[in-house]
């Protein structure tokens, strides 16, 4: 409790301090970074995993 920063600061106060331009730029960067990961090619391990999961479901109709 020696920290002078106000950890309990209200949401209203926090929001009021941010200029709309700044908020918009931050939002754009956030989405750009996030979508950069979303659009990465999928590692093969996941394709394999999905196939394995499907096999454990048993009744896929084929094989046997």
């Amino acid at each position, binding site marked *: 409790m020696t920290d002078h920063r106000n950890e309990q600061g209200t949401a209203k106060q926090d929001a009021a301090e941010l200029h709309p331009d700044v908020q918009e730029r931050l939002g754009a960067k956030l989405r750009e970074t*996030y979508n950069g990961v979303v659009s990465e090619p999928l590692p093969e391990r996941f394709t394999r995993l999905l196939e394995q999961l499907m096999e454990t479901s048993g009744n896929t109709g084929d094989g046997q």
Partner: protein
Amino acid sequence: MSAERDQQMQADLAQLLPNLRAFARSLAGTVDRADDLVQETLVKAWQNRESFAMGSNLKAWLFTILRNTFLSLERKKRFEVSDPDGEHANRMAVPASQTAHMDAVDFSEAFAKLAPDHREALILIGAEGFSYEDAALMCGCAVGTLKSRVNRARTKLASLLEPDRIISDDAA
């Protein structure tokens, strides 16, 4: 459990995988750890797929499993050795294609400095576009708490990235 429903679930999981990876990356930092988290999430989701109500929000369901898995791993980790510095530097690792943008690197570094629950809140609202109500349910907190986390995360990011633009005492 019908094979048809399983097939549908498998297709849906495949479709949502990129988002799960991105969400995991924003929580876990390193690519490897994030992908391990995604893998565990997929396995758990599959094991519990019968408890998912078809027609409800699968992405929210999966994201909830992922963040709960992350939190329980973090709790375990607290009793182990802390991260070596190398892993910290790697957080939200930016793909090589983006490193030309100094901006992107700066942003990732700043983002990594946020508290985990603030990163989570910001991603759910700001990047994934969940409603505050849905995101609060996923995080198991009140809507007001979530809003406060988002606002504090934004303010912190701004203070790190655009310290000169932070205003203002004359906002009134």
